[in-house]
């Protein structure tokens, strides 16, 4: 008996150690990211980093303005969300409420496969198919625009949005739905007036997770958005080339000498990106918790 207890204890402490590694890794990563980013502000003022409107890392004096990159990321992500949220929620409603179970079983694996495609494949598809198509359709000087990035990111965020909202819709108590139907409302009225409001917080969590997925994506946007570091107009900037924060880091990290101002500037951009995704995940998490509480009631 004692032996068994000891063994249990040993397994438990091993697992604790393994999960501890994750926490330690996260803290080290944060520490490193923020320290390297902070070092930029020894020589370069934080106010110019936040307000400067151009990003010229290799001219002298160098200009490291966050604004064009931040607005680039925001416009691409906003476009992606506008495209993918209606599609995603509509698909989730269809799969969980309307579709024949056999059809739903057929559609679901396809959605999952969409999530498994590597981002460079999405990027390549975007560059070869979507970019020329946009150029011809909209008669733009170039198809490498924020919109191309939004379309690709929207596609990539779809699986997250569909599966999380589907879960949310599925966990709406059947009693609610049956009650609504019993009162004489149609299927559509039930979905629109009862199921959707009840699942709203779960769906919001899905949207937040989709945003998180879109804002952190690198390879795909780097291949299709043209990477021009100028502040896009809103909303007409959707049809201009933009550069996101992630693409900037990926494009320039390879070449910078370690410890240079440019190196620290890229880390500072990384830190901003980290903060944004961190906040988004926090929001998604708290929304989810709220939705669990409601479910309990």
């Amino acid at each position, binding site marked *: 008996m004692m032996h068994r207890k000891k063994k249990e204890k040993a397994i438990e402490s091993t697992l604790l150690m393994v999960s501890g590694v994750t926490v330690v890794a996260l803290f080290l990563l944060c520490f490193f990211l923020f320290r390297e980013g902070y070092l930029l502000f020894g020589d370069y003022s934080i106010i110019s980093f936040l307000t400067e409107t*151009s990003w*010229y*890392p*290799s*001219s002298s004096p160098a200009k490291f303005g966050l604004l064009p990159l931040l607005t680039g990321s925001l416009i691409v992500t906003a476009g992606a969300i506008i495209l993918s949220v209606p599609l995603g929620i509509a698909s989730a409603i269809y799969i969980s409420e309307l579709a024949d179970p056999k059809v739903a079983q057929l559609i679901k694996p396809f959605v999952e496969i969409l999530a498994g495609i590597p981002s460079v494949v999405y990027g390549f598809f975007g*560059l*070869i198919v979507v*970019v*020329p198509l946009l*150029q011809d359709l909209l008669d733009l*000087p*170039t*198809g*490498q625009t924020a919109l191309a990035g939004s379309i690709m990111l929207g596609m990539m965020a779809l699986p997250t949005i569909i599966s999380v909202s589907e879960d949310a819709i599925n966990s709406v108590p059947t009693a609610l739905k049956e009650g609504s139907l019993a009162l004489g409302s149609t299927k559509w009225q039930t979905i629109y007036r009862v199921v959707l409001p009840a699942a709203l917080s779960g769906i919001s969590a899905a949207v937040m997770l989709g945003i998180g997925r879109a804002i952190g994506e690198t390879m795909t946007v*780097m*291949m299709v958005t*043209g*990477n*021009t*570091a*100028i502040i896009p107009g809103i909303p007409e900037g959707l049809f*201009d*080339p933009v*550069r996101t924060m992630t693409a900037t880091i*990926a*494009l*320039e990290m*390879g*070449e*910078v*000498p*370690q410890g240079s101002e440019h190196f620290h500037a890229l880390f500072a951009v990384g830190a901003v990106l980290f903060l944004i995704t961190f906040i988004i995940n926090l929001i998604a998490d708290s929304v989810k918790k709220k939705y669990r509480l409601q479910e309990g009631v």
Partner: protein
Amino acid sequence: MLLYIIYRETIYAFQLICTFIGLVHQAKRIGSRRFKMSKKSISYMITLLLVTSLALFGAGCVGNDGSEEEMQSIMIKGSDTVLPLAQAEAEVFMMEYPDTSVAIIGGGSGVGIAALIDGEIDIAMASREMKGSEIENAQANGIDPLEQTIAWDGISVVVNPENPVSEMTFEQIKAIYVGDISNWNEVGGEDREIVVLSRDSSSGTYEYFKDEVLAGTEYRPDALINPSTGAIIQTVSQNKNAIGYVGVAYLDDTTKALSVDNGSGAEEPTSENILAGTYPLARPLYFYTNGEPKGLALEFIEFISSEIGEETIFEVGYFPA
């Protein structure tokens, strides 16, 4: 090298432990079933045994190789422009000398030079000269960079084959790239907005073009930044409004190379013009080593200037130094 061995051995050890745990686990399961061994678990056992023996065998073999004869190897890293040349040379070289290994990695001139400064590689490929700051960094690290010109490359300015413009002066190209000209009709083309393509700042071609054509001025802020030369070719071939710059080795039917006029008449980027020195956008390609190259690095560099090596240079689309 040492790190690599440790890494490999760790992987083997891990495999062994995994298979061992798998075996013990399987044995327990079989024991508890009191000899009711299904066909499935027998085949599972056999697979596990095979994997274990393979892992052991593999570890044994690798150990022997390391002790008996050391395979000579060098690592080369840097410019994407030099990359196709170095790869072709390495293929021919390794065919001639089968006991050698020449590993080549791209990434951009800056990347290769940074790796040389950190002492990670034997040869850095570069399509530009080392900057003063880089040489200082290298010397601070105890590295003494030595430059060798291994070939010449021509830079061509490319447009879509449907674009009626087929020659331009240096001034016009500069005006387009710094942002003074934005419509094709200002350089004799149709009334279309010019889409300006550039490489990213880790490219040696980017630096060369900036120094040589833009005379050090910054690129226009709305130029599209492409992560590779392939992406520039791809975009120019499908966009009638685009203009870009690429190494002559990348030219094919999908794009049109402009004749460039530097005050003494328009010159096409042909091999005759580049070798004769009349085409204005030609530049040397460099190998950087830490001091005089030794051993395999020296053999490889000598091989490039040999007769077979020079043939390969022509085949790739560059010109012998």
